[in-house]
């Protein structure tokens, strides 16, 4: 019985819930959504792969080149825990977090953040 005043106030005022797919809430600037890697700045040092707690980042070499420096990180989004440690550790600050939080997709390829030269068929992923 004690909530009657609050109840009447709620009946009159507009509901607080937002109509999700049609109205969206803008995340805050520091929000860590889907990872985005600036592959030009990346120097292939592999620090991010070593430090990732969920082992979501693997390094792949482009088809023709063999040297270590050309390896680029490939991120499996479905393993990433959005902790931000890779962005913290990257010497070139190539890794940032976008504001996108709807990450579902219909195929496993959709769940990868891959370097430009990446063709899924040829590269074997480390299935750890």
């Amino acid at each position: 019985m004690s909530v009657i005043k609050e109840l009447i106030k709620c009946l009159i005022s507009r509901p607080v819930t937002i109509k999700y797919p049609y109205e969206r809430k803008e995340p805050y600037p520091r929000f860590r959504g889907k990872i985005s890697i600036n592959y030009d700045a990346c120097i292939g040092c592999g620090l991010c792969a070593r430090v990732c707690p969920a082992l979501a980042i693997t390094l792949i070499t482009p088809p023709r080149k063999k040297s270590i420096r050309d390896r680029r990180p490939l991120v499996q989004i479905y393993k990433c825990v959005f902790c931000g440690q890779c962005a913290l550790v990257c010497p070139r600050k190539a890794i940032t977090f976008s504001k996108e939080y709807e990450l579902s997709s219909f195929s496993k390829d959709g769940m990868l953040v891959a370097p430009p030269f990446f063709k899924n068929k040829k590269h074997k992923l480390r299935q750890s």
Partner: protein
Amino acid sequence: MSLLLEFLKIAIYPGVLFIIVFSLFLEWLDRKIYAHSQHRIGPLYIGPHGILQPFADILKLISKEDITPPHVDKSFFMLAPPVLLYLAILGMFMIPLGALGEPYALLSFEGDYLVVLTITTLITAFVFAGSWASFNRFSALGSIRALLLMVGYEVPLFLCAAAVALDAKTLCLSRIALIQSTSPWFIVMQPIGFIISLIALQAELERIPFDIPEAETEIVAGWLTEFSGKKLAMIRLAHDIELFLLASLIVTLYLGGPWGPMGPSALWFILKVIFVIFLSSILRALFARYRIEQAITFFWKYIIPLSLLQVFIALLIPLV
């Protein structure tokens, strides 16, 4: 020709189709008011403002697999849902809906008042039969609680009904409504009766604060645990129609049935039912859930003496 008209009346307007559609609308209304009182929106996406949501729920349940567990006593388990639906619709036939301007209900005779009251008791009896037959610990506990609750709210409901019958000196619902079209509504003379029957409506339909038989956080789904698919759809539909039945019973007894100062009587009836549903869902939003023995003491310590007082007042001031 009149036979066809009669059939149409039973099948369409004041009959089965109207009852089902309107009770689904009432469920939508109840959920919307309950949601807005909790500062949220409620059903929204299916149909304009989510009005087809209850219909979609029933449709979904019908399409779901209808499991009959092996250890279940087939007879009552299969029988209970359709009978509940049938009883609820039968009860609705006796309420004067004021359809097409006729003052009388589809099925009105001297004493239909008692039939509607017995229907409310029969519904709880079949609820008990259905859940006791489903041999599940949780539904056993739920069915015992349903019976216990019935002991609580039946007595005051019948006493208030008796008070109204005494004043109106008739046992035909349509005639009770007719009397109120001329003299002031019974709510003016018997406000206590109105409040008690509103509380009895909450208890009969197992709505908070009395939804103990189906207390979802304690005994899974209470007496509904084993029902699924079509059977659950029928029970949900029966529950909505029962809501419509009891709301219209209160409207007929206390708010003068379909009669209003001017304008079509059917519209008046609908407005009054919406008002009663509004009150009931506000009540539902205001309270927590009683324990079963607290509910029973609440009924027997406060509500029943009040209803006796109501009957006494009804005897003292003979109306009209």
